[in-house]
């Protein structure tokens, strides 16, 4: 990967050590089994904020460190390894990116400090059906005397129950499918007319369905220029896809390490199972997939930091390649562990379930293959 700066190396090592020590998969399991309905532990989130992770993409003037996406990705990868639950991805990366790319100084001034100190959890509310289709946005924003009135539904909203604010993609003109007529709004979660319902997903994380009934916001809530929101939304989404790919890489890499360790220690027919050539060759193939998707993820993170022109291609590439790795890896994790892998007591199931949720987020492999082909002009 890119030769890291001293600071990046420090943060990477810090994240790796901290996550293993303070937020390992066992604490996620405890949270899941506690049935408190809590989607993350406040003290975990607090610690991340104190370490400055919530401000990594935010300029100093708003209390952040402005270290960029590669640094943020290094941390997300570590969280992915231990399935650590926190709003870091949804708010500190996606929400912050939305404000940085589309917000005006006043909006940034109003929310970024909160994003950095953790008091604001700003998440994107986009999908309306079971699929990721930005241009199909249907939620309507009717112009009113002093602003807009939003009505419609959103679903699969990450951190949707704990969010304090939403970036809502809405239609100010046109019909679902039109690239024109989409606008972005920042809406407080407490706004009158918003009803949120928790989605009890297999990964026991925070996802919500939102219904908007004549939710009134004034004109200052518009992020960017009304009606032309799709291009900037795509920029936000590409950063989200790349950040998510970094988390997925971590999840897959941990699954790989667990499997490799099992191959080296588990005995059957009086032999370590890793000595069976067929398993060895499968491990080699998985390792190759891991290394290649890692190359894509790191290249994509750097491309964002360098303002490269091919961020869209790299975003679809990273999400798709790491998606392929994680899909196979999560299945092999179960298969190679055999019976024990099927028990809830063992962690394999947690990784498998999380893997499918991540795959369905921000466009699955088929979505990004199609997008990559379109971007490549065929």
């Amino acid at each position, binding site marked *: 990967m890119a030769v890291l700066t001293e600071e990046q190396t420090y943060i990477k090592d810090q994240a790796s050590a901290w996550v293993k020590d303070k937020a390992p998969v066992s604490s996620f399991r405890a949270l899941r089994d506690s049935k408190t309905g809590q989607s993350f532990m406040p003290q975990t989130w607090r610690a991340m904020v104190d370490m400055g992770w919530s401000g990594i993409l935010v300029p100093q003037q708003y209390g952040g460190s402005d270290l960029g996406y590669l640094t943020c990705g290094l941390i997300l990868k570590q969280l992915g390894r231990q399935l650590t639950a926190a709003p870091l991805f949804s708010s500190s990366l996606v929400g912050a990116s939305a404000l940085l790319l589309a917000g005006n100084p006043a909006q940034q001034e109003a929310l970024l400090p909160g994003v950095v100190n953790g008091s604001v959890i700003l998440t994107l509310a986009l999908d309306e059906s079971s699929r990721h289709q930005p241009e199909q946005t249907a939620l309507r924003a009717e112009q009113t005397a002093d602003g807009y009135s939003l009505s419609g539904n959103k679903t699969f909203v990450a951190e949707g129950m704990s969010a304090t604010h939403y970036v809502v993609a809405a239609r100010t003109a046109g019909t679902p499918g039109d690239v024109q007529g989409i606008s972005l709004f920042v809406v407080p979660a407490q706004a009158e007319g918003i009803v949120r319902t928790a*989605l009890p997903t297999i990964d026991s994380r925070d996802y919500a369905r939102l219904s908007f009934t004549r939710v009134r916001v004034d004109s200052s809530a518009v992020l960017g220029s009304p009606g032309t929101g799709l291009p900037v939304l795509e920029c936000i989404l590409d950063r989200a896809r790349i950040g998510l790919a970094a988390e997925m890489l971590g999840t897959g890499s941990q699954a790989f390490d667990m499997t490799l360790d099992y191959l080296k220690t588990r005995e059957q027919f009086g032999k370590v199972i890793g000595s069976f050539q067929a398993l060895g060759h499968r491990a080699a193939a998985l390792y190759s997939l891991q290394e290649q998707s890692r190359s894509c993820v790191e290249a994509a993170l750097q491309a964002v930091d360098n303002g490269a022109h091919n961020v869209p291609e790299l975003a679809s590439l990273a999400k798709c390649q790491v998606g392929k790795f994680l899909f196979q890896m999560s299945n092999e994790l179960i298969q190679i562990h055999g019976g024990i892998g099927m028990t809830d007591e063992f962690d394999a*199931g947690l990784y498998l379930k999380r893997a499918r949720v991540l795959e369905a987020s921000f466009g699955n492999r088929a979505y990004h293959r199609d997008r990559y082909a379109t971007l490549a002009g065929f």
Partner: protein
Amino acid sequence: MSVEFEASARAWVADNLPATLAGVRMDMYGVVSADQAVREAFDVWRARLAAQGWGAPTWPVEYGGAGLTDAQAKVVSRAITKAGSMNPIPFLSGMGVTMVGPTLLEYGTPQQKSRHLPGMASGEVRWCLGLSEPNAGSDLAALKTSAELDEEGWVLNGQKTWTSGADKSQWCGVLVRTDRNAAKRDGISFLMLEMDQPGIETRPIRLIAGESPFCETFFTHARARKDDLLGALNGGWSVIKRLLQHERQSQTSAPVSNTKAEPLQALAKRYLGVSADGTLADADLRSRLAEHLMDTAAHELTIARIMTDARGGNVEVTATASILKNSATDVAQNHSELLLEIMGSQGLGWEPGAYSEEELRTVREWLGGKAMSIYGGSYEVQKNIISKNILGLPETTQKG
């Protein structure tokens, strides 16, 4: 086989199937209904089937069967299905009618047969099987659970795992080590014992898909009668090999799931919609869906071919049959993954609320289905069997 028989079977079902049961769902533990009347009707139905010997129709009448041929048995079950119901006894007997019973018929003494078979055939006695042990996995012969003979009979000590239905069974067939000094497979025996005794404890296993019929089963000075040894002392390996063949049969003859429910392509169109030309909106998925439907058809045509060949007495049958366990697994697991992909974010639900029953069931079946490539001879073991027993390739060796 005679048309009369078919007619008489239909008639019997028409006369004896309680109307209240038609179309009512049944599972491995009985009828799924809170309605008292339905539950009583179910007991009547079970009793009538048992009296008719149709719980295990191909078994000799003296052991609770009806002495029918396989063909006749098929006719009977078809008659019951046509009437919108099912024969619950094979399920109520746990591993009895499908596995332990047939093995008993071959290896059991007359006394053992009359002692154990009728209870299975009537569905009144549920059997489980204690085979796998922790840390043994696919290596069944590595089992450690021991049985020693004293004046009153066998004394068992050890632990089994993946014993399906152990917490609900009255009897258990268990594989035990009766000679520590013999070679792995030569020191094993097959014992039958009652579950309701102080020496046995069961603990249900929670799986990634949630609740499961599986248990961990602990034997602490558990007791089996001396004459409940099935087959020869230390001859348990041949008994179990035969028993597992019966298991494989019951597996591979099971239909592939998507032939039952709404066709996959219809469901896909419902979730994804279609393009202007009427093709599925997601062209990428469409190709993989078509490929999956073809793989499914190829698998089912292979089962059909084997059936015909078997009737024709073709010897290649067993060779071809060796691929079925894995191809059934491929088809079923790929089917589940495609369902999840089709349902998108609606195919990720764990608990009710925002998801349809179908969506929740799909997710649980997807998770539960991961077991198909692990239990009953793992995917890898099946490939070893094909390459060695069928293709005649030598044992795996050093290096390479």
